[in-house]
């Protein structure tokens, strides 16, 4: 992604970076509820003068966003863990009514209250939560620049394509403070328009009397989703052209895997990384191509297989490359852990 040299370098935390992106995206309001490790996004937005309301719970925050976007206002929330669970009610309404709902999910340990710190255990919730078919946009940033860029994308693409969007990050990245170059003008903002305009007599439903009505509606949604997928699905590839062992990891674990690949290559091990930057829609074409070429696949994540489940579901069934798993639910995974595993199994 573009990082221009004449932009100022700033020392920012992940949370501050998200706040900046939301302002730059033209967000008009934030509805939120305090929950670690997402709270600093809320307080940061407020400190910078953003319009906001602290609601009585995450349910109200989510539904207030639904109301705001119906009126044409870019609105968002940030939540985590048990809050992400509660958010599914409103996200389902957004899925059913094609509302541009934006939520930053700060993954923490689960299930239940877990830890307030970190995990990659909200992948399934973000991608397939609620009682729908996962017609959502889910972005997984691996560093501060991507956190900014993907938050901008979330607003743009949810308003353009009308699917709820999740910026799926975690407590580690949000707390990390580092040097960032914010490329504000590299992206234009997709304009927001009222979905329910004054004087138009618009009637919107999310419940249908007959099965056939729902089915035909969902078929249309699926068509829209598939058309959008080819444009939106994205991934980063590192040394995949001649990779014998293909590592698949996302978010901050993907960043660790990137460092691991560098170390492994220096030891003459032909490792490569496929790092999906959207989990929904999943970059299936790249996956199939690289999975076919590799001799082994290693899926690394801070969960007991939530990413692996998606990879297997997306992988073309005829591809028989053996898959191994490195799984640490709720625990950080640094480059050394990945390097150790690969070198020991050579």
């Amino acid at each position, binding site marked *: 992604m573009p990082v221009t040299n004449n932009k100022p370098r700033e020392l920012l935390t992940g949370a501050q970076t998200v706040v900046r992106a939301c302002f730059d995206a033209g967000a*008009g*309001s934030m*509805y939120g509820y305090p929950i670690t490790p997402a709270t600093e996004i809320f307080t940061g937005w407020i400190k910078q003068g953003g*319009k906001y*309301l602290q*609601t*009585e*719970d995450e*349910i*109200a*925050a*989510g*539904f*207030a*966003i*639904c*109301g*705001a*976007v*119906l*009126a*044409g*206002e870019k*609105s968002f929330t940030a939540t985590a863990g048990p809050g992400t669970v509660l958010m599914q*009610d*409103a996200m*389902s*309404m957004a899925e059913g*009514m094609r509302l541009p709902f934006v939520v930053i999910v700060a993954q923490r340990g689960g299930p239940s209250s877990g830890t307030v710190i970190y995990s990659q255990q909200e992948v399934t919730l973000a991608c397939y939560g609620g009682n729908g078919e996962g017609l959502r946009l889910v972005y997984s940033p691996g560093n501060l620049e991507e956190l900014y860029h993907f938050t901008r994308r979330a607003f743009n693409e949810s308003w353009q394509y009308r699917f709820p969007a999740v910026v799926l990050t975690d407590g580690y990245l949000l707390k990390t403070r580092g040097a960032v170059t914010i490329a504000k003008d590299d992206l234009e903002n997709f304009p927001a328009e*009222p979905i*329910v*305009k*004054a*004087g*138009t*007599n*618009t*009637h*919107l*439903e*999310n*419940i249908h009397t007959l099965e056939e009505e729902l089915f035909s509606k969902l078929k249309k949604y699926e068509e829209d989703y598939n058309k959008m997928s080819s444009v939106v699905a994205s991934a980063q590839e590192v040394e995949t052209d001649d990779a014998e062992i293909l590592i698949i990891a996302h978010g901050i674990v993907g960043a660790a895997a990137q460092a691991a690949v560098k170390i492994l290559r220096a030891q003459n091990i032909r490792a490569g990384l496929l790092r999906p930057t959207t989990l929904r829609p999943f970059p299936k074409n790249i996956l199939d191509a690289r999975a076919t070429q590799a001799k082994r696949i290693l899926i690394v994540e801070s969960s007991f297989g939530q990413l692996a489940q998606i990879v297997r579901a997306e992988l073309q069934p005829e591809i028989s490359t053996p898959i191994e798993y490195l799984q640490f639910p709720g625990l950080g995974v640094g480059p050394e852990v990945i390097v150790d595993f690969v070198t020991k199994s050579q």
Partner: protein
Amino acid sequence: MSLSHNSMPANLAKFCPGCGHPLVLMTLGKVLEEQKTAAEAVLGLDIGCSLLAHNFLPINTFQTHHGRVTPVIMGFKRAHPESVCIGYTGDGGAYAIGLQSLLWAARRDEPITVLVVNNTVYAMTGGQTAPTTLKGQITDTDPTGASNDPLLGPELLRSVCHPEAFLARTAVNDIKTMKEYITKALAAQKSGHFSLVEFLSFCPTNWKTKGSQTLEYLENLKQVFTLGEF
């Protein structure tokens, strides 16, 4: 905007014969027409019998989720303050699953209007016990009879509301008062305050009443639920 027979859509949802909803909706429609605010009116619906109103009035209407119409309407109003925002719900959506949000919207004095159609049961799902079910009333989910007195919504909310918030209860067989209260409620919204009107409403299907029995049942409810402004 007109409510003549010819302007009703062909696939108009079917309220039960004798239901109180059409009476409330038509009165709302009349008030909006007279005040010339139909263009900016926005009607949010709970999921229960309220959902059937989705194409009843020729104004902007959208379904929400059960118990969630209040925050949706609140979000809409905050994004577009010129709109006339009305949340339309039953007693279950208002006082059980949606009570948290209703209480807080009232507490924050959100300038929205919530209309609660109270027939004392969860009607669309077949008549289960609701927050406003009468003490001792037997339903499928309380075969030994409800143990509590009904929850009195406007009374409860008064303790957290701004003095200029409008809270009232009337009945669907009193069109004149319905019109008066809806008008006052929308006026409170215009002045920047919360408003809620509860309507004691007919539900012959779940009350299992016929003809004049339905009216008697309603009159009986008036002995339990005080009518008036709060």
